[in-house]
């Protein structure tokens, strides 16, 4: 009897704790999704009445059209750069013990632990000094500096698990190196590349601090436009925009899950039980 009540008390407390943390994580997003459908002109909980008019308003906002286009293009370029360069570097490191000993891995991962404000500020000073005024170049280099380490990190965890015997088998069977690379290595690396590019895109699309520092007087990215809008008008249209972005994120997560598998991406191996 005592053992059973202990067991159930453990489950109850455990489930309660997990439910608490889950609601902490979900509540703000749920509240904002809810308020985007409310009729009140200012954000209020609980919202009264149901309307889609804020979504209609959102679709007619002109100030986000150009920044959205800029952020999409920037994200694509950054994803291409950090995806390819990060995956190649991770592959090389997984293969070469000499490179692993060189400390290059720590050097590539360093930007993860540094405040992005400091990174952005330093790059701003550097670009000012070198006289690089092209905002596209500064933004791309700034975003790559903060997205590539994460791409590299996830690619590393995948690249080290690649089974080399498959390549050796292909070589033994007489496949020339080019065939081994195009038919064996690249397909095996594809999840790292695709997952890394999706992540880099998502991170670049969301990056605010680096963008606001490096785009001074130049082009405006979407988060910077969103920040400017937030400064002057906190209204349900903003809730509608937020809801759209939340669903956009869900879509990205879904694509990421389909492409790589979320558990793989975050170190959770699929366990066979």
């Amino acid at each position, binding site marked *: 009897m005592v*053992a059973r009540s*202990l*067991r159930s008390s453990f*489950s109850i407390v*455990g489930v309660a704790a*997990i439910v608490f*943390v*889950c609601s*902490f*994580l*979900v509540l703000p*997003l749920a509240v*904002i999704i809810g308020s985007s459908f409310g009729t009140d002109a*200012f954000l209020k*909980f*609980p919202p009264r009445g149901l309307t889609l008019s804020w979504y209609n308003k959102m679709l007619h906002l002109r100030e986000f059209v150009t920044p959205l286009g800029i952020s999409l293009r920037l994200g694509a370029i950054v994803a291409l*750069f950090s995806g390819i*360069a990060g995956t*190649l570097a991770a592959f*090389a*490191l997984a293969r*070469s013990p000499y*490179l692993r000993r060189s400390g290059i891995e720590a050097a590539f991962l360093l930007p993860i*632990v*540094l*405040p*992005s*404000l*400091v*990174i952005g*500020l*330093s*790059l701003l*000073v*550097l670009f000012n000094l070198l006289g690089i005024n092209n905002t596209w170049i500064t933004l791309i*280099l700034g975003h*790559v500096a903060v997205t590539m380490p994460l791409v*590299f990190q996830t690619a590393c965890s995948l690249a080290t698990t690649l089974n*080399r015997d498959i390549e050796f088998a292909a070589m033994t069977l007489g496949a020339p*190196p*080019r065939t081994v690379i195009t038919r064996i290595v690249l397909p095996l690396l594809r999840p790292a590349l695709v997952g890394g590019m999706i992540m880099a895109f*998502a991170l670049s699309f*969301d990056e605010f601090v680096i963008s606001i*520092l490096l785009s001074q007087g130049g082009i405006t990215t979407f*988060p910077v436009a*969103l*920040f400017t809008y*937030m400064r002057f008008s906190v209204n349900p249209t903003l809730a509608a*925009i*937020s809801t759209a*972005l*939340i669903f956009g*994120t*869900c879509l990205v*997560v879904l694509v990421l899950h389909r492409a790589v598998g*979320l*558990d793989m991406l*975050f*170190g*959770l191996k699929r366990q066979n039980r």
Partner: protein
Amino acid sequence: MIDASRFPGAPRYGLLVLPAGILFAPFYAAMTLIGAISFVEYPALRDGIINITLNNYELALLDSFNFEVLLRTIRLGLVVGALSAVLATPMAYGIARASRRDLQLTLILLTIIPFLVNALVRVFALTTVLGREGFLNFVLVNIRIVDRPSSFLRSEFAVVMGQTYFVVPFAILIITALMAKLNENIEHAASTLGAGPWQVFFKVTLPRLYPAIFSAGLIGYALSVSAFVVPLILGGDQYKMYSNLIFDQVAFRGDFGRAAAMAVVLLIVSVALAELLRLAVRRIAGR
């Protein structure tokens, strides 16, 4: 071990690292530059000479307002680090030990989605919870804890809650990653030998999780010490953190020397202090 270089046409791996190296070059140049510039008096190059000075550091550390904000920032880091590690542990346990795959996936999604939603959207969402007409006040008024709603925004509480909201997913991912590697059979063995579930958790599972919980707390500390967006919006002018002061130096004064010195201070506070803490605990734990 077969050496790859023995195979004809084996790729030169050094070349594969080159693109990443080139793309990282500006970052490293910039980090070096910021260190150098923190000793330079701005506006620089007055009459063709660069003035080397320690004044920037004096202002960054000893100015009473800056010092107060720095202490507040460190306090935020410690509180958020500890809070996130505590909140993340049951969730990580749930993900790693979920009995069903769909349950596990749901918990992962509930962690990842808030983690990837645009930071500004997350902060804005928090204002709808913490504001005067927000969710928290609605609950507190209805269960009669408070009589009249009042805004929680622009307070240290709002900044702590907001920053914790940002850090918890990180902490969950870190602890889950370790927990997934732990051998579950040891727990089974303990319970077969008669240990109750609480005993198994506190005597077997938790002690093996301490390193992950601790590094989650440290990363939470480092992330919170450099918090920028959350205090900017949830703290307002009253509850600025150190990052906000750095930004103000750049945006409103254009004083890169002072900003650089403050950035160096922030780097030391976030990275070096976290490292020091790690070493101290390792020494105490005797590992």
